[in-house]
């Protein structure tokens, strides 16, 4: 029967009574521990134990029928093979390129949307805009792919055939440039409204007095923008920017794995898709995991660096 919270033992109590107090506290919370049990089992198996194969797999040569424990040790050989692979430089370049493009395209529009929606007078207009702009975020990447094929796929793509009629042939699913444009463009389209939520929330928590003061000082709308709105957004913008930078090695795998095809591997192959091809399709677990570990390592460097930078600029970080 759970009753009152545990009372801390008096300072300097002897060890044996302290142990009994501990045991009693555990008994008091026994139902709570029961509630914890399913999640604990999950974490133990799928998050903690699996860290062992995560490391070991990269150091071994896994042949068919091998487990992580029966396979042969090759130590850093998998890493050497990965770095020597002709795919390696292209994959790294693609990962950073796609992340960079996504950031470049997707950074400013949500901020603008938040600013303008915030300034809207009528609540109906505000709600309607938000309702429409949040909608695409709930489309899966397969649905997005369906939309993009309807727009860009020959022979019936609405936009692709309109372009063709004007002489601008662009094979969106074959040529690198158009493919990247479609990839990044559709990603921005999908998440623009949703990304604006954070900025909108930040603006909503600004003290209205600041706006009144600006008005009294004679500022027009642009002055308000410069002196109240944008400064209020600087912390959250910095945070979002540094978060984006931290996750640069994970360049939107979920979208790419739906959109890509062998014709565009040259630009669309990122670290995660390469790991997938090596490890799952190619069944070379050792090599795939070596690449994956390398990615995690680089990712950690970015996350840690990003966090340091955030703390220096804004004063607080992720932790």
């Amino acid at each position: 029967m759970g009753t009152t919270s545990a009372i801390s033992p008096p300072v300097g109590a002897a060890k044996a009574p302290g142990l009994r107090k501990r045991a009693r506290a555990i008994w008091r919370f026994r139902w709570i521990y029961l509630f914890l049990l399913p999640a604990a089992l999950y974490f133990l198996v799928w998050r903690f134990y699996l860290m062992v194969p995560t490391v070991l797999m990269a150091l071994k040569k896994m042949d068919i029928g091998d487990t992580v424990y029966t396979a042969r040790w090759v130590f850093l050989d998998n890493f050497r093979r990965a770095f020597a692979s002709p795919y390696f430089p292209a994959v790294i370049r693609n990962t950073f390129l796609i992340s960079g493009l996504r950031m470049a395209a997707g950074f400013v529009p949500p901020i603008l949307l938040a600013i303008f929606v915030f300034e809207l007078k009528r609540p109906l207009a505000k709600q309607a805009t938000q309702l429409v702009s949040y909608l695409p975020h709930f489309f899966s990447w397969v649905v997005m792919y369906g939309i993009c094929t309807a727009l860009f796929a020959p022979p019936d793509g609405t936009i692709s055939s309109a372009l063709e009629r004007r002489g601008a042939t662009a094979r969106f699913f074959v040529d690198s440039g158009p493919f990247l444009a479609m990839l990044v463009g559709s990603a921005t389209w999908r998440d623009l409204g949703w990304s604006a939520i954070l900025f909108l929330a930040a603006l909503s928590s600004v003290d209205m007095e600041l706006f009144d003061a600006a008005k009294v000082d004679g500022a027009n709308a642009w002055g308000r923008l410069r002196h109240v709105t944008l400064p209020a957004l600087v912390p959250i913008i910095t945070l979002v920017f540094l978060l984006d930078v931290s996750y640069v090695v994970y360049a939107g795998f979920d979208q790419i794995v739906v959109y890509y095809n062998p014709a565009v591997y040259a630009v669309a192959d990122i670290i995660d898709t390469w790991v997938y091809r090596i490890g799952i399709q190619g069944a070379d677990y050792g090599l795939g995991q070596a690449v994956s570990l390398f990615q995690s390592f680089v990712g950690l460097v970015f996350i840690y660096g990003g966090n340091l930078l955030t703390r220096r600029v804004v004063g607080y970080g992720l932790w």
Partner: protein
Amino acid sequence: MVNRPPRLLISRFLGETTFRIVGLAYILALVAVTLFPIWVVVTRSLLPQWVYLRLSRYPLIPPALSLEAYERVFALPQIGGAFLRSVWRTLSGTGLAVAVTTLAAYAISRRGLPGRRWILKGLIFTLIFWPGLLPTYMMVRTLRLYNTTWALIIPGLVSTFYLLVMKTFFESLSVEIEEAAKIDGASDLQILLRIVLPLAIPGILTVSLYIMVGHWNDYFAAMLYVTDPRKRLFNVVLREMLAAGNYEFVMKSVRLEEQLPPETAKAAFTILAALPMVLIYPFVMKYFTRGMMLGAIKG
């Protein structure tokens, strides 16, 4: 308005107006760009076959509409079956995840819990280090979960992030009612069920909706773990059909005259995949914005 030089008032007015025009233009452009692709797909899915046969194209403003594509598409065994399997996966996966996560979050939020600090440290560890695709895949195969719904539910069952969100939520609920109940002799389970849960419903609901969207919209895990053609999920079937550029493998059994225009079939599939989440998202917004506003007000 205090005595202000007319020059300043005019500049204020001009600035205000241009700002509003720019803002309105931006928002309208955005709304138009957002709605256009959706319009294209929706009108394609509603195009009657006879219109397509007459025009040989998919007009942006269809002269007539018909639901025949949806009727025919959903009746196909591969599609209908895949859709139902996806529904089952989403509901059971979400239900289990929410149950486990809520219980654990409540437990961790209990302040006097012995070992609580270590538990939290462990959770932070899982935020920083996590197993990759390959070890997880290997585990699924080892545990013989391959080609079962479990493979889609278990590996991602508890998200540390959602767990922490819920924990914070539980911690923010007032303590007094609980203490009163404890004094009255209620058990932990009773407290959870009768007192805490009713108060916690908004938070739990928000997280549940996010998890549900994650399950329904998932493609990669379903593609990876369920390859048996009789068991495949909806997103996987849809993607294959879109990528193949044709849908003959689905329509093989249908006579030529009865076949739908290709883009209409694809569009109908796409809308079917999107529809459940489109129907749900207003509810997500209701709870989410409420939560955001609360957070904003509180500080």
